[in-house]
């Protein structure tokens, strides 16, 4: 079999498609994305002091505890009206990491959290630790990052729920 145009064409097509599939399975969305916060009140109320974190970052029991203790929310009184609290709790619980709506990533997060614990910071979960263990301590101290809760400092599309690796841009200062 000589090298004909037809053979070259098949080779090229095979190369392109394998690259396509590689790229797809490596880079793309499905395993590093959360549905963005789709509940307007949750997005507004939770998002005014910090990023509106996706409900899928924590299990339902974590959200329930957090919403029951909003008057002592990380050192601030973030309490809302009973109606607002109930509506936001419902959204967070319905879309939590261990909810029926959870995707594979969220189920993985939930399974790493010991039962009987209700972590209040995603950054203290095993999943976060595992994914950030190569980030040296001095990088966390950079002014533009400042806090582990400041996802968007490095994950440029975090606000829309996307944490894929090629969107990471670590600030230099």
């Amino acid at each position, binding site marked *: 079999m000589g090298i004909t145009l037809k053979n070259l064409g098949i080779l090229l097509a095979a190369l392109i498609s394998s690259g396509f599939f590689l790229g797809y399975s490596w880079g793309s969305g499905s395993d590093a994305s959360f549905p963005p916060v789709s509940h307007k009140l949750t997005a507004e109320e939770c998002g*005014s*002091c910090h*990023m509106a974190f996706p409900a899928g970052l924590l299990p339902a029991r974590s959200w329930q505890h957090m919403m029951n203790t909003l008057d002592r929310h990380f*050192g601030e009184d973030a309490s809302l009206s009973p109606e607002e609290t109930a509506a936001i709790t419902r959204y967070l619980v319905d879309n939590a990491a261990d909810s029926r709506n959870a995707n594979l990533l969220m189920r993985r997060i939930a399974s790493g959290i010991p039962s009987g614990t209700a972590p209040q910071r995603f950054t203290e979960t095993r999943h976060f630790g595992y994914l950030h263990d190569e980030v040296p301590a001095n990088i966390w101290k950079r002014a533009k*990052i*400042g806090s582990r*809760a*400041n996802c968007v400092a490095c994950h440029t599309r975090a606000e829309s729920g996307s944490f894929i690796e090629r969107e990471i841009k670590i600030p230099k200062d």
Partner: protein
Amino acid sequence: MNLFHLAVPLLLLSTPAWSETPQQILAQYQQQAGGASAARGEKFFFAKNTLPNGEVVSCTSCHTDNPKAVGKTRAHKQVEPLAPVANRERFTDPAKVEKWFKRNCKDVLARECTVQEKADFVAYLISVK
């Protein structure tokens, strides 16, 4: 459909029911307090307070010492400028103004603000040119 039919819903969209001017909001506080002083408001804005946990805070901790500048919350979220001259949305929604007074006065003073403090604060920020 003519231009008129298009313009009416557009007008309705651009003026939500709650929309007030900073002057209207100031007038309400002023009336309740019996007056307002921009100079007092300025002092209040920069005043430092020591919280029970020893942390020294003031309005400027998050809003910076320039009311026309973009600030930053403790969780590093951007805060739009406080002065209406730099942020047209500031002091246009009475419910929102009350909500943030309630919250931030507790953050900084560990108590709610008085009507007088609110009146002075709004008067100061409106005076910033």
